[in-house]
Structure formats: C-alpha cells, structure tokens
C-alpha cells in the first residue's frame, strides 16, 4: 500500500465517540477502539466475505442488520454493537453454525477441566470423550461461543462424517469441524495467489479443497501454511504440534533458512521448539512464510541423526570423546600450519558471530589466509558485482510499494515465496509486472508482459528494456533478434514500465550465473542511477551477505577490504590445483566424496557423507544465539529457544564461535576472550565500521572499501549442438545438508532430480518421461533420468545444481555437470543406450573419475 496520508474520521459506537482512519470497515474501527464485535470469517489481510453473519450491527438510518465486516465506516455514523436483539440473533446464528460442528468442547460441562489439563490433551480427549479437535488454543470459535454465551444447541446436530485428510505433508485437514468461513480459501487465492483451495459443491455437501479431488501436492500447494494459520477452528492443523496443547511461550526470532530473513514466532513447550508461526512484522514478511520457515525448523534441529557429540578417529574406529580431547587433537594438528597446507571452508548459513570468529581464527590464531566460503558460489558474477548490488537500495517493502515490477528468473513456489507474495500484494494495488524468464514460472500467470528469451539472454533483455524506459521510439530490432523475444512485446513492456514511478527489480539466483552477465551488470548499473528504484537480488544461503561482509573469503577482510597474502581457495581443491594437508569444513560439505587430504575436520550439525578424522558438534539455530544479516543488510536476532544440550544423552553441541574460541585459546592466541555471542557482535562492530553492536533491524547499504573484480563473461553459447543445457541452483540447503533428507514432508516436495525437457523434445528423441538420456557437453558425457516438463522451452535441458551435497547421495550421478562453470552451454542429447539398471544406484565411479 502506498503511504498515502489517511484522514482521521469520527463516529459513534455504542454511544461513545471514537475516531478511525478513513476507509476501514466498521469492524476494524470497532477493533481499533477496543469494542468487541464477534466475527468468524473476517481477517485483516483478506477481503470481506460476509459469510458467518456474526458481526451484525445496527446502524442509524440503515435498514436491517448490516455486517460490520463489509460495511465501510463513515464520518458521523452511529453504530450499536450489543443490543438485546443483536445478542439474540447472534445466538441463533451461532447455534446454526454449531449444529454442523461437533461442539462438545464448546458447551461441554467438562470444559474447564479440559483446559486445565491441556498439557495432556490426548488423555483429556479420552477421559472426557472428546476427540474432535486439536484444542491448541487456536480456536476462535471457542472464544466467540464463550462471549456470545451459548450453553445449549436447539437444532438437530449433523455430523458430516468425512474422513480426516492425513495424506499430504505438514498439516492435517478435518473438514468435519470446518465452519466454511472461507478464510483459508481467500488466503490461498488472494494473498498467496496459489488458488489451491476453493469452495466445492454446495448446500449440505459444501466443502473446501482442491479441484477434482486432488491432493494438495498434486494441486500445486506451496505448503506455506498460511491457510492453517488463519483457520479459526481446528480444521487445519500442523501435524507435528497438533496435540501439543498450549505452548509454554512464544519468542520472536529470525528464520535461519534464507537471506530474506523472515520474522518468525517460535513456540516452545517443555524447553523444546514445538512450532513456528509467521510474525506480523511489516518490514519483511508481514505474516507470511514459506514451507521451510513455517514447517521445517523443529525437524531440522530435532532429527535423530543430529550429531551432537565430539568424535575422533582412533585407528579403525570413530570414537566419542570429550571436548577437551577433541580440542587438544585438532589444535595440535593446526599448530604452526602453513598457508598452503590448510583450508577452512565455511557455510554462509552460520551466524555473523560464527562467521566472524571463523575468519578471525584463521587469520589471527593461525596467521594465514586460507579461508573460503561457499557463499562465493552463491554470489556468482564476481565479488565486485555483489559489492555493487549490496550498496544499492535493497528492500522487501520496496516490492510491495512499487507500481512497476520486473521479475527475472524467479519461481517463488518453494524458494523465496515471501518475495512472490509481496509481488502479488503490489499487483493487487494496481502495479504491473513484467517477467523475463525463459522458463514458465508461478509468476508468469500474473504477469502483464512475459518476455521469454532464449535461456541466458535475460540480462540482455533487461538491459534493452532499461535503456528504453522513458524514451519514445527506441528500436528493439537487434535485441529482439539476439534474444528471440518479439519486438512488439519488448516495446509494450517498455511502455508499461515507463508509465510507472516506483520500480522494483527482483532477480532470482539462476540469472547471475548466466553468461550474458555483462549486459546484466550494465543494466543494473543503469538502474542504480535511476531514482525510485529498489532491488531484490536473491541468492542461496541464509547469511551469504554476512559471509561477504565479514570477510570469510580469502581475498576479503571484514568490512569488504582487500586482504593481503594469498590463501588456498575451495575451487583450488575442487579442481585439484591444491591439496591442503588439513581441511576444516565448517557447516559445509561441498564434496560427495572425501577429498584427498591427510586430516579432515568437520564442524556441523550432521555428519558429512564421507569419513572424517574429527567431528566437532555445532549448536543448531535453535540452540545458539546470534545474528543473521539479511539481503537488505538488517542484522537480525536469532533467538536461542532451547538450552545448549549438555548431557550424555542430549549431547554437547556448542556454538561455532565458542568452538573457535576454545581452539584459539589452546593455540595461545589472546584475542578470543568472548564470553557470549553478544561479545562477538561487539567485536564485529569495532572492526567493521557500520556494523551495529546490537541486533539492529535497520537496512544498511554497504560501502565497500576495496575495488573488487566483476566477472564479465560476455558472448553467447558456441557450438552447433542442438540443445541448451541450463543449470538452476536449487535445493533446500542448510549448513551443507539438504533439509529434504531430514524433514520428512519436504522429501515429497524435493527438487526434481535428473534432466527436464519439454515434452515435445522428448517425443522427438523418442524418449518417455522417466527414461534415461545421455547429455554431452564437449568431451563430457553424463547419463541421467529425463522428465517431461512443460515449463521448459523447446530446445532446452534443465537440471538442478544442488546448493547442498550433504544428505542426498543419488545426486552424485550428475556431479560432473555441477562443476561446469558455464551456463547455459550447448549440449548434445540422446537416448541412453546403457543397459537397464535400477535408477537409484549412485554410480560413485562417475563422480570420482571426473576429478
């Protein structure tokens, strides 16, 4: 919503004079003035529906009983909300609603006992004979019943007798207790734009659900959980926490899974993280989340494979040891190590404190510069490009408030969903969307102009458009030819964009990897000079920006200054140009197999998929406190909702910064006197000029100290091969592990493995979806499964380059392709001639041979 000044008006509610902002409904005006009007179907984020009729009021000079939720409040209006007639009518209406709702828990005489014993809700259910509803205090119906004062129902009770729907992941649906308020439907349609849910059938059979009896997975559900959160009854409920009853407490924290940094509410019960809901924070996510933030946190930290004990290799055995023992051994290995003998690889998912301590450990305690981060891979295009991007005005709110939006290469179904929601919010307020994407995406259906260039040419299209904005009759002939986009369409898009004032540019992670980078950079530079323009460059990794800013990359010092002295880098190791003696992996597993090093240390929350010599258990996002830097530069707080595990059973995981401090102490380095994460943050703010000393949610623009190189690879994809092979970075990575391997429900939504081609192309190759094909790029040949995917344009082959290797071993099959630095590339595709084999076998040989 654009920040228009709203006028304040005055009206009378129940004979009291109250003020309200112009344009709100009577219901909202009453709420703002602490007047209670019962309501079941209205919701602040949703359009009025007028379905439950509980909110009836009397308004002077209006006939009948208007609905407070769908009547706009007007200056001088006189409203009565609580007359005897209204009370009687509401009772009647509510009884009708309840006649189709199992109501024992609402009017039951055991109600108080039931509430009191809520921590054993299942048993209560058995003893009081009520087993309808999760009773997780989410139920607004209970409250309304209580306040309306119903004790009995005069209508015949009708139980619908539907089967409870358990099949989809993450949440259950029991439509026997649905009151058909339509909140979930409106949420799914209006806010999420997903339209999975709709009303179906009518009369007594009316129900909510996807079309044609499909499951939510089949119907394209994002599993954002927004519908679950707004359901006023227990119909929709989280599988994992459904029977937990009332939480012990709720704390606001930051989602640790991507750079958007949504604000979440962590529910805890008996000292454990039990459930996550969105926070109504207006700055970033405003009550919305994606599947990862909403549903994946508890399982990601509580999974039975969590490794929480220090381990050392002792001959043939991998043994549990004490912290002292492991610190002794690891420190011993690192003592006096030289720059070319060592490499520390750090995940961009660590907290700022962990990242800073990591680089400080390598630079001060070891006195070398051999540190690298996978953040580098998440920021393709060169560090200079990102130094530039981070110095621009990056803003989530900017998307919501824009009147023109350009989206490049973004599919927001499972990744960066919240950005997708913001785009749709802007569209609802009349903004125009221009999508530049070779692939079909979930945004393409809302877009005004969809420019569909050859993959890799998105940057060129953007550049042409940017040059054209505001100019009359610019020619698009050559660009049109080069990018295969219709000339007229380009002109239309430009004229749409020229009519707007506030422009938001949202760029998905695939685009930065493309070769037409040069034009992309030109376009962004041009856009940066334009006023009223905000950006949203999206990358993988939760704290990638932090890793960049705090110098967890060999050539950068904290504060984006140039480092002196060369160190080993990750790509040196991958390409085999360096073989350090000791490799220290901090929350990251960038290999499928153990690299050829003498001693490998892993510090993380899960074991890597290969043998290591020392394992140091790191505390998870739920156990450690700290801060994360989001894409906008906000330094946001990560709350330690659980205590650090500290027993033989629970293990002894410790925060990353603490592990580094102890190692440093052992190495007689005096600069690690940290007592808490807060102390580390203070130290950061001393070292890095505009870094706050306390969590501070102000967006910051970066001021780089050094001039950094930009990778400008121009030129097209050469070669006569008929197909374009496109890599898309994907996967639900967190600290080097794919969450899909730990969170059961995610597995069902996990990224597609293998190759995806347009069905027409598959037909021409005479390959059925699911059969195997061979893809050759130059001398490299890889075999994998092919799937038909309508969203791929003809003549392309897409594959997912996982951002995390840990956890899903079958991905090793395409590994040689993950190492290709160029995308898209020309490729030859043929039906595979190899013998029938089980598709699951991971051919370790292929992966090893490529190195």
């Amino acid at each position, binding site marked *: 919503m654009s920040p228009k000044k709203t006028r304040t008006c005055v009206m009378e509610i129940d004979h009291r004079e109250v003020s309200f902002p112009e344009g709100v409904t009577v219901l909202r005006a009453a709420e703002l003035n602490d007047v209670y009007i019962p309501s079941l179907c209205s919701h602040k984020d949703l359009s009025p529906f007028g379905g439950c009729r509980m909110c009836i009021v009397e308004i002077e000079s209006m006939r009948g009983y208007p609905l407070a939720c769908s009547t706009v409040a007007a200056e001088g209006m006189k409203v009565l909300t609580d007359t005897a007639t209204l009370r009687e009518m509401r009772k009647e209406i509510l009884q009708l609603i309840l006649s189709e709702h199992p109501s024992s828990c609402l009017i039951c005489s055991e109600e108080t006992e039931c509430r009191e014993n809520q921590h054993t809700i299942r048993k209560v259910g058995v003893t009081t004979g009520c087993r309808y509803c999760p009773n997780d205090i989410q139920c607004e119906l209970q409250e309304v019943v209580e306040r309306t004062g119903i004790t009995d129902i005069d209508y015949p009770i009708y139980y619908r007798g539907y089967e409870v729907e358990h099949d989809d992941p993450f949440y259950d649906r029991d439509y026997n207790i649905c009151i058909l308020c339509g909140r979930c439907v409106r949420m799914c*349609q209006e806010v999420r734009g997903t*339209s*999975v*849910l*709709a*009303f*179906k*059938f*009518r009369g007594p059979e009316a129900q909510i659900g*996807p*079309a*044609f009896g499909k499951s939510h997975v089949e*119907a394209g559900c994002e599993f954002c959980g927004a519908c679950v959160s707004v359901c006023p009854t227990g119909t929709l409920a989280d599988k994992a926490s459904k029977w937990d009853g009332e939480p012990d407490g709720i704390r606001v924290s930051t989602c640790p899974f991507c750079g958007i940094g949504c604000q979440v509410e962590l529910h805890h019960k008996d000292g454990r993280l039990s459930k996550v809901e969105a926070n109504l924070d207006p700055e970033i996510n405003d009550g919305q989340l994606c599947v990862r933030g909403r549903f994946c946190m508890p399982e990601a930290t509580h999974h039975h494979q969590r490794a929480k004990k220090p381990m050392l290799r002792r001959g043939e055995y991998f043994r549990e040891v004490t912290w002292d023992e492991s610190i002794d051994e690891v420190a011993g290995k690192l003592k006096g190590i030289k720059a070319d003998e060592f490499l520390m690889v750090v995940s961009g998912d660590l907290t700022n404190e962990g990242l800073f301590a990591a680089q400080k450990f390598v630079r001060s305690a070891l006195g070398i510069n051999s540190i690298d981060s996978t953040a580098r891979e998440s920021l393709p295009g060169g560090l200079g490009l990102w130094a530039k991007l981070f110095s621009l005005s990056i803003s989530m709110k900017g998307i919501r408030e824009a009147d023109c939006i350009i989206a490049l290469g973004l599919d927001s179904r499972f990744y960066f969903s919240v950005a997708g929601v913001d785009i749709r919010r802007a569209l609802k307020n009349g903004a125009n969307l221009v999508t530049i994407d070779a692939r079909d995406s979930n945004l393409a*259906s809302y877009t005004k102009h969809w420019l569909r260039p050859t993959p890799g040419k998105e940057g060129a299209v953007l550049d042409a458009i940017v040059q054209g904005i505001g100019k009359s009759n610019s020619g698009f002939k050559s660009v049109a030819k080069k990018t295969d986009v219709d000339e007229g369409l380009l002109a239309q898009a430009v004229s749409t964009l020229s009519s707007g004032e506030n422009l938001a540019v949202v760029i998905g992670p695939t685009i930065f990897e493309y070769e037409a980078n040069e034009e992309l950079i030109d376009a962004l530079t041009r856009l940066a000079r334009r006023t009223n323009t905000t950006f949203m460059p999206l990358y993988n990794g939760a704290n990638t920006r932090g890793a960049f800013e705090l110098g967890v990359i060999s050539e950068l010092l904290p504060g984006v200054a140039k480092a002196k002295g060369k160190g080993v880098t990750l790509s040196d190791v991958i390409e085999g140009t360096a073989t350090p003696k000791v490799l220290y992996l901090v929350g990251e597993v960038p290999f499928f197999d153990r690299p050829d090093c003498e001693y490998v240390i892993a510090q993380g929350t899960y074991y890597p998929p290969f043998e290591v010599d020392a394992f140091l258990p790191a505390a998870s996002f739920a156990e450690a406190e700290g801060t994360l830097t989001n894409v906008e530069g906000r330094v946001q707080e990560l709350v330690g909702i659980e205590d650090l595990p500290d027993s033989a059973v629970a293990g002894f995981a410790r925060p990353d910064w603490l592990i580094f401090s102890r190692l440093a102490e052992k190495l007689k380095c005096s600069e690690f006197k940290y007592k808490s994460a807060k102390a580390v943050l203070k130290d950061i703010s001393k070292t890095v000029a505009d870094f706050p000393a306390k969590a501070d949610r102000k967006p910051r623009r970066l001021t780089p100290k050094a001039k950094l190189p930009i990778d400008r690879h121009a030129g097209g994809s050469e070669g006569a091969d008929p197909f374009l092979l496109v890599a898309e970075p994907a996967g639900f990575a967190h600290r080097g592990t794919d969450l899909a391997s730990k969170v059961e429900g995610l597995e069902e939504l996990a990224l597609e493995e293998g190759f995806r081609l347009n069905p027409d192309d598959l037909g021409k190759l005479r390959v059925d979806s699911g059969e195997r094909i061979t893809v050759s790029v130059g001398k490299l040949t890889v075999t994998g499964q092919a799937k038909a995917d309508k969203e791929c344009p003809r003549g392309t082959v897409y594959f997912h380059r996982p951002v995390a290797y840990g956890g899903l071993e079958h991905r090793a099959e395409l590994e040689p392709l993950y190492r290709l630095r160029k995308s898209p590339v020309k490729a030859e595709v043929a039906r595979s001639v190899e013998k029938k084999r089980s598709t699951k076998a991971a051919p370790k040989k292929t992966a090893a041979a490529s190195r």
Partner: protein
Amino acid sequence: MTKTCVDPKKARKILDRYPSGDGTSLIHALQDIQAEFGYVPCEAAELLCEHLSVPISKAFSAATFYKAFSLEPKGDVVIRVCTGTACHIRGAQTLVDELCSILNVAPGKTTKDLKFTLETVNCVGACAMAPVVSLNGEYHGNVQPGTMSKKIRGGK
C-alpha cells in the same frame, strides 16, 4: 470405457471461441464443454483454465456449484423422473424404484455401459400430466408403472 477420453482437438475448438487470458468467460466456456462432451471432463477443464489463465480450483468450484454441470460422463439417454409434489403423489417413487432395479443404478448415477443416466428432478412444470418422466428432454406424461422398461429401450 473409451468414452471418458477427451479428444483434445474438440476441446481446442471450444477454447478458440474465447480470447485467451479472459477469465470472465469461464462459465460460458464450461457450458460449451458440457454441451460438447455431455459432462465436464477433468482434462478439458484443465486445458480451459490454462487458456483463460484461471486457476483450476475456480473452475471446479463453479462446475460443482451449478447443477447444469456434471463432472461425470452422462449416459446416451438421460432419464429424469420428476419427484415434485404432484408427481410424488401420483407414484413417482415407484417409477424411480422400478428404474433403479432395471438399470441397477442409484438416482444420480450412470450405468456402467454409459447408456443410461438416472436422475430425479423437482417439478418440471407439467403437473397436469403427472407423473412425468423425461428422456433426453422429451416429456412423457401419465407414466404407468411397469412400462418403464419398454419406454427407455424405445427412447434409445
């Protein structure tokens, strides 16, 4: 059951009558599909929604709300027995029972061979000749019990 397969060419032809991306023509297009196939097949609805840029759930919502649409294929002969007040009094239920046992289906259902669909309707406005049965829209009045078998075979 070859009949349940949808000929995509036929569906395309219907779609081409409506401008792509225009969601307002959803109901009209659904009516055309219903007329062409005798029901709204899932595949046709999917094609339509893609064409009009309407979420499939909306089409389903509409198709299940209005009685004019059916999501299941209908038989070659649609038998509608009026069970309005007048017809009821004059023995409509006997006719329904008779048809159920001849066809071996419940009201609202279609025979396995897709030849007959049995439906009941409320007053069709021909109370004077109650009880009324319509076969593919053709009304038969004063229907006597025991004559149904002959009637429907004849109406084929």
